[in-house]
């Protein structure tokens, strides 16, 4: 979706202001919100792509005005409501619906460290041929899907060169909505600053964007 989350190349947000001796979390509620979101994911009702999509679907005003972990939490609540893990009535009352069976945590305390160390790679062990080769000129498709995508607007319609073939990965566009993994190659595509920004900036510079096979088309036909 052409949402506010897709920020690359926008002006007007001011300078980057690093915080000296920044703590990992700025308040106790941030710790709890972070952990709640991570602890709910292993129920398997949504994917990481789905969680990103839920954050993108927050209203533009909320995306601008709410803090980072508020957005995480609001999106997680939306997902829990959508998937039936919680009901609106339960959120409003703060009490479990006695008619619903008690659940079992998907992540126990002892399982946390092993689960984090193991992670969950989006790489797919499948013998799928790449459509493009390193060194080949390609164009990012001019496409504006209303669902989740990881093709940023600033790259759409732009030409670049395949710089790295990263191998085969799950496609977020389908995986976000539980519509399958659609495994395909992901490439780091190198776009020159001139191609992206029309002469603004230093012509020597470039941006490398990781793009899925179906986001790309060959140049010259």
């Amino acid at each position, binding site marked *: 979706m052409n949402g506010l989350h897709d920020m690359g190349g926008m002006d007007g947000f001011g300078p980057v202001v690093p915080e000296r001796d920044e703590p990992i979390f700025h308040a106790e509620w941030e710790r*709890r919100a972070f952990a709640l979101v991570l602890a709910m994911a292993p129920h398997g009702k949504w994917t990481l792509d789905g969680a990103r999509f839920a954050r993108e679907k927050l209203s533009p005003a909320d995306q601008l005005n709410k803090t980072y972990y508020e957005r995480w939490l609001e999106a997680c609540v939306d997902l829990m409501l959508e998937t039936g893990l919680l009901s609106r009535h339960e959120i409003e009352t703060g009490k479990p619906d006695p008619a619903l069976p008690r659940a079992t945590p998907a992540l126990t305390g002892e399982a946390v460290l092993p*689960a984090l160390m193991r992670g969950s790679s989006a790489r797919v062990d499948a013998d799928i041929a790449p459509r493009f080769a390193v060194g080949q000129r390609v164009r990012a498709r001019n496409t504006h899907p209303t669902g989740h995508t990881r093709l940023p607007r600033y790259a759409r319609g732009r030409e670049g060169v395949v710089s790295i073939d990263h191998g085969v990965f799950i496609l977020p566009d389908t995986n976000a909505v539980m519509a399958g993994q659609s495994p395909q190659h992901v490439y780091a595509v190198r776009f020159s600053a001139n191609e992206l*920004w029309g002469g*603004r900036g230093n012509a020597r510079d470039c941006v490398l964007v990781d793009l899925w096979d179906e986001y790309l088309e060959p140049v010259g036909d």
Partner: protein
Amino acid sequence: MAGHDDHGHDHDTHDDGHDHIPSEVVLRVKALESLLIEKGLVDPAALDALIDTYENRIGPRNGAAVVARAWTDPAYRERLLADGSAAIAEFGYTGRQGEDMVVVENSATVHNLVVCTLCSCYPWPVLGLPPAWYKSQAYRSRAVIDPRGVLADFGLVLDDDVEIRVWDSTAELRYLVLPERPAGSEHLDEAALAALVGRDAMIGVAKVSLPGAGA
């Protein structure tokens, strides 16, 4: 097992060390946490373990150890650049948000900078959770269109003939910048070198310098 007899549970806790009146969001998080625990969806011990992991166990010291090894062991540097995930796993730094790592090397002529314009993707096993500025709208919007301006915000000015490569983490590859080893550090061992390497240099918004050396 039914939730019925949990009805009288007291949600109010005042033990978090904050003595000001809790804001709406603080109350909302507390209410949600209580609800999810009561429903059996969340194990409170898991919450504590998650927080402890990212607050105390995993952080940029991990990445710094990797960088220092690459500076002192040419064979390791080669493995790291060829297969970041495997070489980093030699330290035991694996898992969530670092499953597939790519290490990009700075030199006198190339400077790498990492951003996630679409959200806040960041290599957790080697750098921990991202700082607020990395997640900020200012950084995410500008790093790709004005990388030199962003670097200037950090006090880093590069020559015009240095090529800046900005890596936008749009997929599940996570990038770690291997900074240049500072001149004059030849006498330092791996541990002393690791102590010099800060988080910002591994994102690409800073260089590594010796204490007391002019930038």
